[in-house]
């Protein structure tokens, strides 16, 4: 699964990436987590609130650190 965390490198963005990595390991879902810090790229996804989360090219979240439950839902595709 290809996960991108959109954000300028603020603390919330780092936390978001960590939560996703930890949850994926816990669920045994193979993921690559990439941090996108380039504002032009972030704007390209139409995201106005950071951190944003993109999974397999689709924006699933914008603004604030997502809850662990949400992350689990995205990773399992439920």
């Amino acid at each position, binding site marked *: 699964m290809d996960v991108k965390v*959109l*954000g*300028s490198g*603020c603390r*919330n963005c780092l936390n978001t990436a960590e939560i996703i990595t930890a949850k994926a390991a816990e669920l045994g879902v193979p993921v690559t987590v990439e941090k996108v810090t380039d*504002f*032009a790229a*972030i*704007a*390209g996804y*139409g*995201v*106005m*609130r*950071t951190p944003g989360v993109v999974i397999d090219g689709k924006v699933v979240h914008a*603004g604030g650190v997502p*809850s662990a*439950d949400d992350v689990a839902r995205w990773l399992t595709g439920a």
Partner: protein
Amino acid sequence: MDMMQRLAAMEDRLGPGGPAVLVVGALVAWAGIYVQLGPLADGVVALTPLDPASHNGAALRFFVYDAPKVLMLLVLVVFLMGIVRSFFSPERTRALLSGRAEGLGNVLAAGLGVLTPFCSCSAVPLFIGFVSAGVPLGVTFSFLIAAPMVNEVALGLLFGLVGWQVALAYLGFGLTIAILAGWTIGRLGLEAWLEDWVLALKTEATAAPAIDMTPRARIGAGIEAVREIVGKVWPWVLGGIAVGALIHGYVPQDTMVSVMGSEAWWSVPVAVLLGIPMYSGAAGIIPVIEALIGKGAAIGTVLAFMMSVIALSLPEMIILRRVLKPRLIAVFVAVVGAGILAVGYLFNALFG
């Protein structure tokens, strides 16, 4: 989401109106405690061997009265604002502002800047999102200036600590600066001073997804806002009140009046300049401000300082540099700074 689960459990027990009943009950309890804070503080001071009229006694009274008062006001205002903000989103605001003419657009943008949830770390993506979707540059600036300047923390604390007249005047002048500064920047036609790649971007102001929340979820959003904002600022607030208590008890009134009194014409520009390199939320400096005003500092000077700290911060300029050419940042600082100066002198004239 243990909190949402708890709210859901309450709904099961009390019926669909359960969370609302609980909120009303909490508000009544809040008011009951709030009106008793004065006598409570007197009681606490009476328990100590300090003379209430002494410096130490006055400082202690100031702290044990103001600390709970400020924190309670913060919780109330942030909670209510969290509920109001659950009706707004940047996407919806962008759709409202896209293609809007200047003038009315600036007014609308300043108002929405206060109501739309906004975090300064999202300033750049939001800026790009607005401009690339056809929101005029000046209108975008009105939003970006109003959002941090007229914030619920500043407003609630001014209301509680200094008085409703000053809080209302702050709201009015904050919005006016945002509207006029944005309008001026729009008139100047500075689109070419954006970084080139920003101009090249075009995005759609797609129909904003409808915000469909249950009343329970909105109350949850209010509680979440309290947890996040008050949870973060309370040490600063307590620190600010402690400094305020020291000033209250110890700094002689004459010193403060000669330094920050309304007679000194240069005090307003100095306050603005001092505020630029400082970066603080409104919560940390307001108790200091209250103590300064109580000791005879001119209110316009103090407010100019506060607006400068909040609206003209060096770290924010460094972030904005990613999308604005230096010339545009200079114009932004000059226009907003001029507005703050005007407010400072006006307040000193009105309330001095």
